[in-house]
């Protein structure tokens, strides 16, 4: 690294390559971190695990599962050999994200090498730590442009004793209202996703409830009794745009998974959603990821196309013929942002000029010669 800094040699930090398409393409000398692997420290009662960046995510998750624990942000692997480093660098989180938190929320500490070749440690292995700037969380989602991740300490949580998935026939507009209502009640909800209708299947809302068996069963009963139906939406912003009164009608399926790490149908559904392997994702073509306030109404009018709602409505996957400008404009109007995923990689929403300047200055502070994954996040970053 020090040599690369001295020679201004650009480096492409590489793991298993599972997330090549999660950012922009980088052409530079590869720096392979897959050999830097292994768990450094894990005391289950501390709820903290520290592992090297090259550790396969699968291995990490099995070690946690042996102690009945898990990574609460349910990270997408996006490939067989996905590493911890790539997962944290890309900052990706799965279906549990709106209810448990994101990759950055569980990152407690990191050891990195910055663009000057200096070995630095930030944060630590404790839950609460406000000594110095939170550089560890800054690394999450920075895609290796600020430092090479060496070790990462993460907060972990116990696995739920029981999981239960409800599948309900419902259109998207009603699903958004339902998911919003459910999120306003203290329920053990850990995932909520809506699939658009296909030629074989009507549109459906999937809800996952997790926790102690008694609590999960009570929540299932609560939802099935449609107690929510009587609750008027107290929405100020969207009151006039409420869709027609289509309340939940049929409860088609219930999938109960009580065995830990069970491999039932419901488990497979959530895993395939997390890994973007559901049929919705399989046909090629441009895919948009819209990150929006969860109660944002359906985009049908402004953005025609098929839309899958995840994260209780806060993450929406859109297949559309609408122009990139139209998609970005419609998303920004909600207070969110859109990322285009295509065969070349991921194109995030452009930054405002003042934010772009800030980003360049932050980059300079860590990597003055611009040798770390140049251009991976944005041009010039």
């Amino acid at each position, binding site marked *: 690294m020090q040599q690369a800094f001295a020679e201004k040699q650009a480096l492409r930090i590489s793991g298993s390559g599972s997330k090549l398409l999660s950012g922009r393409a980088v052409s530079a000398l590869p720096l392979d971190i897959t050999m830097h692997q292994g768990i450094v420290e894990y005391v289950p009662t501390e709820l903290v695990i520290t592992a090297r960046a090259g550790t396969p995510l699968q291995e990490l998750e099995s070690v946690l599962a042996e102690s009945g624990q898990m990574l609460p942000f349910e990270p997408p692997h996006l490939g067989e050999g996905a590493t911890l480093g790539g997962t944290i660098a890309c900052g990706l989180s799965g279906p549990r994200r709106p209810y448990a938190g994101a990759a950055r929320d569980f990152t407690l500490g990191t050891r990195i090498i910055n663009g000057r070749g200096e070995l630095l440690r930030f944060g630590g292995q404790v*839950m609460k730590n406000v000594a110095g*700037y939170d550089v560890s969380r800054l690394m999450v989602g920075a895609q290796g442009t600020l430092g090479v991740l060496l070790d990462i300490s993460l907060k972990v949580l116990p696995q739920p004793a029981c999981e239960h998935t409800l599948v309900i026939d419902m259109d998207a507009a009603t699903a958004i209202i339902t998911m919003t209502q459910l999120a306003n009640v203290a329920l053990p909800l850990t995932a909520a996703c809506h699939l658009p209708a296909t030629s074989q299947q009507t549109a459906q809302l999937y809800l996952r409830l997790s926790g*102690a068996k008694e609590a999960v069963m009570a929540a299932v009963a609560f939802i099935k009794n449609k107690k929510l139906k009587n609750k008027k939406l*107290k929405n100020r912003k969207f009151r006039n745009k409420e869709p027609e009164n289509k309340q939940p009608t049929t409860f088609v399926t219930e999938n109960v998974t009580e065995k830990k790490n069970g491999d039932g149908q419901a488990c497979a559904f959530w895993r395939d959603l997390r890994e973007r392997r559901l049929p919705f994702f399989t046909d090629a073509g441009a895919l948009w990821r819209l990150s929006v306030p969860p109660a944002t109404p359906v985009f049908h009018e402004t953005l025609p196309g098929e839309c899958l709602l995840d994260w209780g409505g806060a993450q929406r996957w859109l297949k559309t013929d609408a122009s990139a400008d139209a998609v970005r404009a419609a998303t920004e109007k909600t207070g969110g*942002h859109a990322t285009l995923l295509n065969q070349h990689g991921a194109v995030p929403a452009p930054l405002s000029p*003042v934010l772009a300047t800030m980003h360049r*200055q932050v980059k*300079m502070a860590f990597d003055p010669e611009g040798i770390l994954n140049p251009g991976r996040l944005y041009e010039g970053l």
Partner: protein
Amino acid sequence: MQAESQSVLANQLVTLFRQFLAAGSVLSREEERRPYECDGLSVYRQLPLLVVLPETVEQVQQVLRICSEYKVPVVARGAGTGLSGGALPLADGVLLSLAKFSRILDIDLQNRCARVQPGVRNLAISEAVAAHNLYYAPDPSSQIACSIGGNVAENAGGVHCLKYGLTVHNILKLEIVTMEGERLTIGSDALDAPGFDLLALFTGSEGMLGVIVEVTVKLLPKPEAVQVLLAAFDDVVKAGDAVGKIIAGGIIPAGLEMMDNPAIRAAEAFARAGYPEDAVAILLCELDGSQQDVEVQVGQVKMILQDCGATDVRVAASATEREKFWKGRKAAFPAVGRISPDYYCMDGTIPRHQLAKVLEGIAALSEEYSLPVANVFHAGDGNLHPLILFDASRPGELERTEAMGGRILDLCVAVGGTITGEHGVGIEKIEQMCHQFSSAELQQMHALKAAFDPAGLLNPGKAVPTLHRCAEFGAMHVHHGEVPFPELERF
């Protein structure tokens, strides 16, 4: 000579500020500036050059532009409840109070968030949304007084952090004004934002990177049921084991607090919470969730506590008793204040399994320095608050207390912990930063500050020590005949 040039500068600034601020919003007379001379850590005091109280973001921008132009340092201040001297003014600097930014701007029930000005009190947010069955989770013990802007600047915690996280986990978006007067938005109304996670970087940055002028906080639905258990132990190690076993049992309590005997006795004398005064340690365990969840967990926790050798386990029989259990813990600081003329609150965080070792170390230090200590401990997340009892009117006792506090923090770092869990570094723990971080790490932090504040005018001298300063501290430690971390590079 210096005083003269300062008063010329002050007069110049007053003229400039009064062009857009009301006369009552620019405080220059000594008696007007006096109330701002310290924050919650009152052992450090300094009169600011001037105090300004703008009301609009545009006014904040103008103040900062002028200060940038005249190279005048600025310290932002919220409610001034901070415990590390982060809002301690500078003699040659402007104190920027955000007290007038006290409005809740918008409550979005659908998306469960609220847009508030930085001077809004922490508890006022929960109160404003209570009727909708929502609340704002982080609850630092100063929550009736502390403001949300300060909470963000310090990444404030509270007793419910283990389950509900810190400030950084509970905010969505910030509006910031840079030292150069530029306004920018970081984060978004969605769950994430493109680019670097500047939201995380700004949270806990102690007013060093920008001035927070608006905060969007997340709101959570109130749990359906809450229950509190109180367990007494005749041994601190047993109490510590119980904490580990509760968590190993797959239970994440909403709050898990420990107090040692001196803290128990002080709290009981003050709050009459019904604590067993002969116990060596007590644990308070709050469980929340659905009715069913809480019932199941209360049973499990009760069993674990008994298995770990608790001499007494009580489950609050009513909401009143629950409040009573908490009352003692929440009154622990003022209660200790009553039994001692002064106390000094530390804030180290340690890996929980090191608890026994650290408590032993603290007891040894207490003897060495002849200063009693009462321990209050956020046991769930490893955040220790040893309270060193002293009398500032006795010559040399404050210095001895600070020296002992420093040793406690060194001990926390040595066992893999950190010098501050939730109170911030401020001016108070600046020396200990030299022990926790290497010179390259500190330099990286300075470079990061320069990215936002190249002239170094925002809250200079706080949070991150200069290498020069570390060298001086290093020398002082050698003088005491001990270098805590000989492997660290010294300047």
